[in-house]
């Protein structure tokens, strides 16, 4: 092809030379081709329609084409972008913006550990999120939060609104009940840690997990929040084992594969983006409709109410605490450039965000340098480096058993309570609670400080390359290393720290975590093509991963003066927790492509790990898939409305490891009268424990019609997870409460539909839309142990229950008759999202609606406010079926005291305008007029996040989780940090 084109071009030039005057309307058209973000598109094809006259754009996206006769139509196309046709009537300058293709048919998608495949040949429903979709509309709070609603098959849930994140993501239903259910994150080939590490000292004060659930209620950040969304070029999501089998025993919960931006050869481009904005609480619960009479009847404090009223001292403390407008500033400076040998991308981002509660906030600085160097045409080295420094101040929220968290304290706070400090900063004691929430907010510290390096390198060597075969060696190494220092300080001035109030005279805690993941892999990739377009791709390789973590926490109490060093106290409590794991595996895969008509793949991953009972036993994870592009069989002609129809089926298996240490029954240390002692743990280990195994079958079809202006993807999947890791209840008289067992099987079945449309595609006006719809249902198909409750506060308040034949995410509780019944299900009935991107001239408007229909929460915030007599809806009557008892009384007397959990299980549906962004791109000719060649691109705009939220849920936000992200327990609410909406304005300048 290339030869022919060059020859033809040569011929054309000859013609031009010979008859320059014949064609009167002949002329040159030139300009720059850029993408939505104003970045140049190099290597784009420009062809005069109906001819073979064509050219390509250079590194800076600049093209020049001579036209024989006007008017002519120019066709602009490039891999991964929608093709555009523009009529030209005279020789002129024509700058063209190519939209990234809605269908993304030509983008390449991961298919093996060392190979990728064009989307049109892909047999799996792999979702991709581009840079523009991820952060192009509005800057996301965190990377994982930015995924909500952008593709099918996921439940993305924020655990709290505290700055710095805390998210849970589940692909295609619950994949593990007591094992890890959060996806694996791979950034440029590096296994990136996403742990949530609780800070010492919080539970010591809140006593949240004293007598009740052992899960973490401390609301720690999950560490994927460190990754800077601005650096990301592309995210691919493997939602289940059929695609994620290549990641073996770590793939069952899905894999999020993140690729960061690379440099473009050519002129060095510098881009500066600045965003300003603010946070605001989405919804406040409001106040009970207080009056002197009500204050008297409820608390006998009518006189205090009247006094406060007359002196203007009535105060809405919810507003006082959550009513801040936290400022946000995002600065991003990036540079990209290089030559044909070496390219680089460098970026520095600084995010600074205040929370909606005073003294909370998040600061992050991320520096990235990605370099690629071609030694020659056969050897390519690339190096990706990222340094992140972040600080999150997260306040003190969620459940407690001591009346100390700000959230719980608010439930007992009445408007006439006077809690403000005097001129010297002395806070009054709360007259109705053991802590003064304003004092706690102002004086306590709960911060997480992270320093993190992520380094990844790869070396690709073409070992040989012949006419019809080639062999490539791909080697990769990656390290993710971070140190996190979590500081928790409760000064002795706090009401609940004072010894006369039963306090311990101040608590200061340091929790230091060192985490290092390292992974190495080497692959041989062999391609072989036959003359009749049959191609074989063979890859074989070995992988090795190391995971190491060491957390040491020191909690000091009875502090000296106002010192906070942990040695400056009477008592120190030290804890250390280590994790060391090494996995080793191999991977082989064969893909056969017959003329892009039939594409079949077979693969096998074998994994062994020090986390298994037999550390040198291999666990094998096979995969197989086939795709048939019916449109390439010639059943219908080129002119048909059907441009593309692909049938696909994929099967794969993947695993989830047992939690580290679950093989062993390990003594815990204790102290009595100065003597160290050892005591049995709650959970009995099981030396026989093995990884869970997920088997997923996925079938579907993709079609494109009407010149690919309408695309449809439909996928049905069924995944069964066998050998489920269950923290089974044991007879407690064994001395243990629970024991690890491989003891059950669950099944998720679901449907995912994605409809893409290019509704309008004119030169000055384009409108693309994507409609996603997805649904999952789950069932516990087998249980080898008795049903058990998990992730809640017992059947009187609503709890999850793992029970054969029932939905895995069912919420049960005792009803008004005292019978244990299913009261709800955390699984949504369905979710749907609608993304629109409208470009008119230099304006672009994008917005994303996300509707989650159904799915229930356990809401206990209102109940705690009822006990404090402060619920906003205390006197309303909407819960009592008899229509006589006020809600506050009903929840207490007819709810918890009657053993009736019904009022606490609530529908958590929502409809949100997740993201909206309106941008104006200053026309380049103005820029040239104003700045000459210095500034090539200027964009300004407004955007917002969660601006519109519609829900009936009776609290701050149906997206909430008292118990953090893992397992089933999302959706249990106890006085959380409320979530917020964000308003931003932006300016972006390219030099």
């Amino acid at each position, binding site marked *: 092809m290339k030869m022919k084109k060059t020859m033809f071009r040569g011929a054309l030039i000859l013609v031009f030379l010979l008859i320059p005057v014949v064609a009167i309307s002949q002329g040159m058209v030139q300009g720059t081709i850029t993408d939505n973000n104003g970045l140049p598109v190099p290597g784009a094809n420009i062809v005069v329609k109906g001819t073979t006259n064509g050219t390509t754009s250079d590194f800076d996206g600049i093209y020049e084409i001579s036209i024989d006769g006007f008017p002519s139509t120019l066709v602009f196309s490039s891999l991964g972008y929608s093709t555009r046709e523009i009529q030209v009537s005279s020789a002129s300058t024509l700058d063209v913006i190519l939209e990234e293709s809605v269908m993304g048919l030509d983008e390449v998608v991961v298919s093996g550990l060392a190979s990728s495949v064009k989307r049109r040949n892909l047999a799996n429903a792999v979702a991709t999120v581009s840079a523009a979709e991820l952060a192009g509309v509005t800057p996301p709070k965190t990377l994982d939060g930015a995924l909500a609603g952008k593709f099918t098959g996921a439940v993305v849930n924020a655990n709290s609104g505290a700055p710095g994140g805390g998210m849970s993501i589940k692909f295609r239903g619950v994949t593990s009940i007591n094992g890890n259910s959060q996806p694996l994150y791979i950034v440029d080939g590096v296994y990136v840690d996403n742990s949530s590490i609780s800070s010492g000292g919080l539970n010591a004060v809140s006593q949240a997990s004293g007598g009740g659930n052992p899960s973490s209620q401390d609301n720690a950040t999950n560490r994927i929040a460190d990754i800077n969304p601005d650096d990301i070029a592309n995210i691919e999501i493997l939602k289940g084992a059929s695609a994620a089998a290549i990641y073996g025993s770590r793939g069952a919960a899905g894999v999020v594969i993140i690729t960061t931006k690379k440099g473009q050869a050519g002129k060095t481009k510098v881009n500066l983006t600045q965003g300003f904005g603010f946070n605001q609480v989405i919804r406040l619960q409001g106040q009970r409709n207080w009056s002197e009479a009500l204050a008297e009847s409820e608390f006998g404090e009518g006189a205090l109410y009247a006094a406060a009223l007359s002196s203007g001292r009535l105060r809405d403390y919810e507003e006082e605490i959550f009513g801040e407008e936290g400022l946000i500033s995002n600065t991003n400076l990036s540079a990209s450039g290089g030559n044909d040998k070496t390219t680089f991308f460098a970026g520095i981002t600084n995010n600074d965000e205040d929370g909606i509660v005073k003294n909370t906030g998040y600061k992050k600085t991320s520096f990235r340098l990605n370099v690629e160097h071609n030694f020659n045409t056969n050897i390519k080295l690339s190096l990706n480096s990222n340094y992140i420094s972040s600080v999150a101040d997260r306040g003190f929220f969620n459940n407690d058993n001591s009346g100390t968290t700000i959230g719980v304290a608010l439930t007992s706070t009445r408007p006439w309570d006077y809690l403000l400090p005097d001129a010297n900063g002395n806070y009054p004691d709360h007259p109705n609670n053991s802590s003064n929430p304003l004092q706690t907010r102002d004086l306590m510290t709960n911060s997480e400080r992270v320093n993190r390096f992520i380094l990844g390198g790869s070396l690709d060597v073409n070992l040989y390359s012949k006419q019809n075969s080639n062999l490539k060696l791909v080697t990769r190494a990656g390290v993710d290393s971070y140190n996190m220092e979590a500081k928790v300080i409760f000064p002795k001035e706090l009401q609940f720290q004072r010894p006369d109030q039963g306090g311990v005279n101040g608590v200061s805690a340091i929790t230091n975590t060192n985490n290092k993941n390292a992974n190495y892999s080497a692959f041989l990739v062999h391609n072989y093509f036959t003359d009749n377009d049959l191609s074989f791709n063979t890859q074989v390789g070995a992988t090795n991963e190391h995971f190491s973590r060491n957390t040491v926490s020191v909690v000091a109490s009875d502090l000296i003066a106002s010192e906070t060093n942990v040695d400056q106290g009477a008592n120190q409590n030290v804890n250390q927790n280590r994790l060391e794991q090494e996995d080793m595996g191999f991977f082989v895969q064969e893909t056969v492509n017959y003329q892009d008509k039939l594409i079949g793949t077979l693969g096998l991953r074998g994994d062994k790990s020090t986390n298994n009972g037999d550390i040198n036993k291999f666990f094998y994870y096979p995969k197989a898939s086939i795709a048939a592009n019916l449109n390439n069989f010639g059943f219908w002609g080129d002119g048909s409305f059907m441009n593309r129809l692909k049938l696909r089926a994929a099967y794969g298996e993947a695993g989830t490891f047992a939690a580290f240490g679950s093989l062993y*029954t390990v003594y815990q240390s204790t102290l009595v009268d100065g003597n160290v002692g050892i005591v049995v743990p709650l959970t009995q280990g099981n030396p026989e424990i093995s990884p869970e195994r997920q088997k997923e079958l996925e079938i579907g079809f993709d079609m494109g019609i009407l010149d690919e202006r309408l695309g449809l993807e439909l996928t049905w999947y069924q995944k069964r997870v066998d050998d489920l890791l269950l923290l089974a209840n044991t007879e407690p008289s064994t001395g243990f409460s629970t024991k690890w067992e491989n003891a059950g099987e669950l099944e998720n079945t679901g449907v995912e539909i994605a409809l893409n449309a290019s509704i309008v595609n004119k030169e000055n006006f384009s409108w693309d839309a994507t409609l996603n719809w997805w649904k999952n249902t789950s069932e516990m198909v087998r249980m080898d142990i008795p049903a058990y409750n998990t992730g809640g506060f017992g059947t009187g308040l609503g709890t999850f229950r793992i029970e054969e034949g029932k939905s895995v995410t069912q919420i049960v509780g005792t009803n008004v008759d005292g019978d244990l019944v299913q009261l709800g299900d955390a699984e949504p009935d369905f979710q749907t999202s609608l993304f629109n991107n409208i470009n008119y001239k230099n304006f672009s408007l994008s917005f994303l609606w996300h509707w989650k229909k159904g799915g229930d929460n356990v809401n206990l915030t209102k109940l705690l406010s009822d006990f404090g007599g402060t619920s906003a809806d205390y006197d309303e009557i909407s819960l009592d079926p008899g229509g006589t008892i006020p809600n506050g009384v009903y929840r207490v007397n007819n709810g918890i005291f009657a053993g009736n959990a019904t009022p606490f299980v609530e529908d958590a549906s929502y409809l949100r305008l997740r993201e909206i962004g309106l941008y104006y791109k200053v026309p380049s000719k103005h820029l040239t007029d104003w700045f000459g060649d210095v500034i090539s691109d200027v964009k300004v705009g407004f955007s917002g996040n969660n601006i519109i939220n519609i829900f009936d849920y009776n609290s701050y936000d149906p997206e909430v989780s008292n118990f953090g992200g893992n397992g089933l327990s999302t959706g249990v609410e106890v006085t959380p940090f409320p979530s917020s909406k964000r308003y931003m304005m932006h300016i972006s300048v390219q030099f």
Partner: protein
Amino acid sequence: MKIIKAIRILMVVISFVLVSCELDGGESLNGASTSSISDDISRGELTQAVSGVLSDMRVGLSTHNDVKSIFGREYYYFTSSDPRYEGDVVVGNLDNNTFYVTTPWGARYATVKNINLILEGLDNTTADFSAAEIAGARGVLNTLKAYELLMLSDNQHDNGIRVDVSDSENLGAFLDRSAALSSIAGLLDSAAGELGSAGDSFAFGLSSGYSGFDTPQTFLQFNRALMARVSAYQGDYTTTLAALNASFFDLAGDLDGGIYHTFSLSGQDIANPLFIALNQTANVRVAHSSFVTDVQDGDTRLEKVVERDEPREATGLVGTHDVALYGSNVDNIPVLRNEELILLYAEANMQTNPGEAVAALDVLRTAAGLPAYTGTTTPAALEDEILYNRRYSLFGEGHRWIDMRRFGRLSDLPNDRSTDNVPSAIPVPANENK
């Protein structure tokens, strides 16, 4: 051709992976495995393992004591964070899968497990323990095990407890109250035998809560004191008197003399879970109103409660007095005190030797600032007087509910709300699959 070549390379790589890369590692990094004790306990480990037992005996103590004290209408526990103490527990509607049932049960059996692992380790040990040292360790451990089992049986009563739980895979049958008490008495007797052949000292240390009871001879006095309690519960007063005789029972001695749980704030130690400062609002232990109204004039034992600045109300229940048994969060909590032994002595003599019973009671009355007992000495009258003194002498130590139950008087306990009720036993946790 090429495919064959590729396959050949593939074989080479796979065999490379399979053959040359053996993993090593795979250890429990975060603590000693339980088998390290049960397979062969060493001298150094013995003290640590016994300390573990003493420490674990305190776990769940507040839940255990609060539930019993609420049942006995000694005090209420109101906490803003968990309404079930003023709900389920006062109403007497106990869910068999909620913490107030499962925590005390699980904590006591965890201690029993700790003990059983050491007993197993003592059978298997290769360390240079003498026979006397092993007998001493067994005597102490079996005595403590009997105490833990008694705590369980006190709660579950005729719902039953398992006594033989040494094999997790093969748990023993449920024993009702009377069978459990016989079994516990048997365990105490055999422990007494072991202590008798334990020489003059133990091979391990005990906490300061056992000071005065830290040799085989003196620990035996604790063993016998427990036997006195168990036999009184059995109604076998002859044995009670014999056991008291061999115990540290002392009519002239310090009423507070005895064995205690100790607490501190250092390191992994725990604070006294029953301490709450006075006049708190969020979490309070407030005396039942009858404790104040039923007291005899001048009884200084009323000082165990202190009137609050403001009453604390909780859904229809009102507390006007804070429980003030403990002055700080490191105060000791009694396991067994001489004061109880004096009461057991009075009880054991109530029918057979009323004069001796009155003499014992007068020791306590005098100490409490009351005049000597002048009422009739019929068993019924003395029973009333004993129960009065047990109520005030042992207030907040978890006795009243058990006392009222064994004397058939549970229905005498007051219920402040129409919904309230005093149950006769705590259910067996659901997970026991009884």
